Each structure stands twice: as structure tokens, then as C-alpha cells.
């Protein structure tokens, strides 16, 4: 049941930024009888090149490697490790995953996206091809998300290897695992969008990485403070924090408000990235 939900929501999500985006008015280019129909073809071309360059540089391997190692380490080492608690659950993985997504994965996959293109000047050549700014942003976003998807699928190796094949360490309830993955995906949608925005406002990929990492980890860490701050202050933190929004998913609950929250963040920052790219024209 939850598996079906995941796939359904996925397709919805992938289309969401797209459809919202076309509703954004582009003042510089009123859409007057455009002879070129294939918005999506260009997005795919740009995203494809993006993915190609991830695997060409070390980015993809480093991001995926570090994340899988960290998640594995957290699950199998330490006092509360999988072995000590002795229960068929993937909860430990979903404790670690949000920190890795916000701290390493999203900043890592987006840091080059626009910042590096600005620095090296390739942006000029890209944008003077007949592509819309929105196609550039969306292509880069989808390219970055594809890498995150590869990572999430890669992390599936843990539950599969532990509970399906080659080992059978117990009978796993897959419901919370799928909802956890849905949460991780939603969190990634929001985080990658924020990263893309920060990459669009600087020419330095290192700066882009750290601003993104600090702000996303900050947003996540707010969740820790929720219990120690009483009253409306705590409510506000709980509302904003990525962690409090994510945690129910790891327990098997799909919180529609969290879905809306993560998607809103994703859309807001995609639009902001688009504006930031467009602003080159006027500054």
C-alpha cells in the first residue's frame, strides 16, 4: 500500500516544479508564438549533461560513498547499533539520512550547478543557445535530483542485503521503510532546491557548498531545540525544522502537511533560483 503511494507521489512531485514554473511570469520573454515546442527535451538535455559531469568529476562517487559509509557506520557501530537493539528495523538509517542529505548530499550535488558555470563562463554559452532560463534551472535541478535518486536507491542495498538477500536477519516491516524513503525524497526535493539557489548567487562553488550546508543543517538542527523551548517558540521551530517534519516518515506516518511544506520550499527556491539567474541581465 505504502509502496504504491510512494510511486504515485513521486510522479506528482517531479511534475510539480514544472507546472508551477510555467505559471511564473517571465517579464523579459513574453511567450509570444514560440516556434520551439520542446520544453522538456531541453530540460532533459541539460539534466543529462549535468549527470554526465557528476560522474566525470569525483562529486558523484564522493557524495554517494561518504553517505553510504556514514549511514552504515551509524547503523552498525556504537551503543544503539542494529546489533545491540536486536530489532528488525531500519530506524537507524533514517536517523542518519536527513543529516547526510542536508549536510553533504544536497550541498555536494548543487555546489557546481550554477556557481561553477558562472565562474568559468560556460553559462554565457549555455544561455545564448535558444534555451529558456527556466529550462536551465529545471534541467540542473533534475540533474541534481537524479544523482540523489541514485544515492537513495543505493542505500536500499542495506535493507535488501540485511533482510532479503543474502542475509535474512529477521522479518522487516517494509511500510516504514518506504514512507521513510518518501520522506527522504521530499527532504531532498527541498534541500536540492535550496542548494541550487545558493549556487546561483555566488561564483564560488566552495562558498555555495558551505552556505547550503550550514543553512540546511541549521534548519534540521532546529528540531533538537523544539522540546527545550516551550510555548509558541517551540511551535515555530517545529513548524520550520526539517527534522521534525521528517521524523514521522521514518516511523511510517505520511504527514500531508510535511509533504506540502517540503514541496513549498522546493518551489519557492526554484523560483528564487530562476529569478537569480534572470537577474544577470539587469545588474
Amino acid at each position: 500500500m505504502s509502496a504504491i503511494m510512494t510511486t504515485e507521489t513521486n510522479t506528482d512531485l517531479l511534475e510539480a516544479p514544472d507546472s508551477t514554473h510555467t505559471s511564473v511570469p517571465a517579464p523579459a520573454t513574453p511567450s509570444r508564438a514560440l516556434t520551439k515546442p520542446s520544453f522538456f527535451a531541453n530540460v532533459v538535455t541539460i539534466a543529462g549533461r549535468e549527470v554526465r559531469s557528476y560522474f566525470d568529476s569525483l562529486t558523484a562517487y564522493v557524495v554517494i560513498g561518504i553517505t553510504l559509509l556514514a549511514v552504515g557506520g551509524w547503523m552498525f557501530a556504537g551503543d544503539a547499533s542494529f546489533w545491540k537493539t536486536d530489532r528488525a528495523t531500519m530506524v537507524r538509517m533514517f536517523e542518519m539520512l536527513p543529516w547526510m542529505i542536508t549536510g553533504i548530499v544536497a550541498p555536494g550535488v548543487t555546489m557546481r550547478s550554477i556557481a561553477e558555470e558562472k565562474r568559468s563562463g560556460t553559462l554565457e554559452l549555455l544561455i545564448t543557445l535558444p534555451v529558456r532560463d527556466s529550462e536551465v534551472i529545471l534541467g540542473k535541478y533534475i540533474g541534481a535530483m537524479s544523482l540523489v535518486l541514485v544515492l537513495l536507491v543505493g542505500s536500499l542495498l542495506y535493507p535488501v542485503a540485511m533482510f532479503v538477500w543474502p542475509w535474512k536477519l529477521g522479518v522487516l516491516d517494509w511500510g516504514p521503510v518506504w514512507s521513510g524513503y518518501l520522506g527522504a525524497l521530499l527532504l531532498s526535493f527541498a534541500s536540492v532546491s535550496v542548494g541550487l539557489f545558493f549556487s546561483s548567487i555566488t561564483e564560488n562553488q566552495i562558498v555555495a557548498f558551505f552556505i547550503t550546508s550550514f543553512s540546511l543543517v541549521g534548519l534540521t538542527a532546529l528540531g533538537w531545540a523544539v522540546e527545550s523551548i516551550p510555548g509558541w517558540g517551540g511551535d515555530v521551530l517545529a513548524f520550520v525544522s526539517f527534522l521534525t517534519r521528517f521524523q514521522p516518515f521514518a516511523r511510517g506516518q505520511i504527514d500531508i502537511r510535511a509533504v506540502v511544506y517540503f514541496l513549498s520550499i522546493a518551489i519557492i527556491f526554484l523560483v528564487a533560483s530562476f529569478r537569480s539567474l534572470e537577474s544577470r541581465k539587469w545588474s
Partner: protein
Amino acid sequence: MSNDVMIAASELSKVYGTFRALDKVSFEVRRGEVVGFLGPNGAGKSTTMRILTCFLAPSAGTAKLNGLDIFDSSLEVRQNLGYLPQRAPLYTELSVFEYLRFAASLRQLDRSTFMKRAKTVVEVCGLAQVLGKEIRQLSHGYRQRVGLAQALIHDPPILILDEPTSDLDPNEKAEFLDYLKQIGRDRTVLLSTHNLSEVESACGRAIIVSRGRVVADGMLGELRGRSGKVRYTLTIEDPKGALRASDVSEALAAVSGVATVEQKPSQGKSMTFEVSGADDSDLRPQISQLVLQKGWMLLELRRDSQTLEDVFRALTVGDARRNRKLGAPSAEDDDEDEDDEEDDDDTAAPAARA
């Protein structure tokens, strides 16, 4: 016919903060013209090209390419042109072929058209040997060729090239300019460069910009004749070897009609002088008479009409002078524009270059 005007810039202005990078730049380029776009560094050449290619928007004014407005039909404008930015910034992790395919697919070329066009541009740009190589392994000259190839891949009616030959060696340059002349017959090419000999060999017309303004626009012959000044090159030798350069200069300067005399580097006992006349009357009789009178041995006396380089320098000399100065611009420089003290696209301070 008005639709023969392929590039029409009208009153383009671009202001960065208080710095006016472009000030009402207007010009037209017709089909079948190869036009040289000249100017010192920071004069606004690249800014103009970036506006025409829809990378930047002008602060005021507009432009039409092939009848399409850069604001209203930005996508169609870009479909109609091939652009090579300065220093050919390419995705270095792609191979040459992959890059061309990337550009072609964003330009909606289908596979068979792409293969056909790719064959042509690879031949024209001399890329056959490096097609499978990653761009990062290529020299600057080759990268520039790849940049040209992507600008030509869709066979555009308009080509805008920002210093396309800066990294090419002399042979490549000559080849490339020949090719430009060839394709320029039924297309429109706007080409920026500092290299005036290139303009002389490839372009029929030149537009000279300085400090964000068009200071000259015309056919090359017309531009050369602009100031009406004529130069003479005189090479003499003194058989006795006792001749002093300063004496010769003085004697030459005393000839009526001579404006300036300048000694040029020379070899051995011979001395070369460049004499410029105040007007276009012929001074050769007077000069040769002087040589006879003094008993010098005449090796060469040549009359040149003004070169493009002279025109360029005369029109843009203020820029160079201003770049070397730290203080406020003096009255003789330009007193109406106090705000363009920083004169570069990159807004580099004058001090950095002084």
C-alpha cells in the same frame, strides 16, 4: 530592402551602477556583410555582443536581429544566431563530439541534420583529429575551433564572434578569415577583435567603439581616408656615417607642410623616419629635394595613406591615456562624463592597469 538588415541596434545603453558601459550605441549590419567591431579593451564590445545575444538586457534601447526583437522574441533571436563568447568557455569534461551534440540538441537539430552539419563544421574547423578527445585536453587554439564549430553547427544566418581568432596561430587565422569571407557572402558576421590586420583582410566595414560609444562606422576605405592625413616613410643613409638623427629630424620638420617627424628603428647606417603631412597634398617633391640638397643617400621614400591603425588610435587615444591616470579625468579628456572613470566591463579600477 529593409529585411536585409540583419542586426539593428538602436540606442543601446547599459549602465552598471554609476558606470555607463554603453551609451546609445546604434548601428546596422546587413546580409552579406562581414563587419569588424573594434575598440580598446573595455570599450563595450563584449557588452554589446552580450546584449545582441540576449545574455544581458540593455538598460535602454533595443535591438532587432533578423527582424526579431531581443526582448519580445529572445528565443527566436538565439535560434537565428551563432555566438562565440570571448575565450570560448566550453564544458571541458565533454568530448568535442559530445559538445557539438549537446549544442545541436539544444538547437533542436534532428540526428541526420546534425550528422550532416557536424561533418561540415568538423571539416571547416579542422577538428577531425580531436573529435573524440575531451575538451580539457585541447590547446586554446583547438578550444576556439570547437567554439566556432558549435556556433556554426546550425548554419545560422547571423554569426556573432567575440575575438574568435585570439588563440589561433597565424596559419589558422588566415584559414579562418578566408572561411569567414566565404560564408559571409550570404550571411551576416559581426566580429570583434583588436587585431586590425584581421579586419583589413576579412571585413568590408568596421565599427569602432570607444568608451561605450560608436566613434566611427563605415567602409574601410572611407575610414582610412577620414582624417585626410598622409604619411611618408623615408629611409636615408649617410655615406660618411657622420649624420645625426636630430639634424635630419630638424631639417624635415622645417619643410613646409610637414606636421610631425618621428624616427623609426633602423638597421646599420641607414635611418628611417616617418613624416606626416598636415593635409593631403603630396610632400614627396619637397622631401626629395631636401635629400638632394643635403647630399644624403636616398634608400626609400614612400607615401602611405592613413592605415586603419592610425584611425583607430586617433579615435580611441583618450581611453589609453585615461587608463594610465589615477586622478579625475582632466578637461581635455572628457569633461561631460565624470561617471565613467571605471571604464571596463569588469569594472577594474584604473589603478589596476596603471
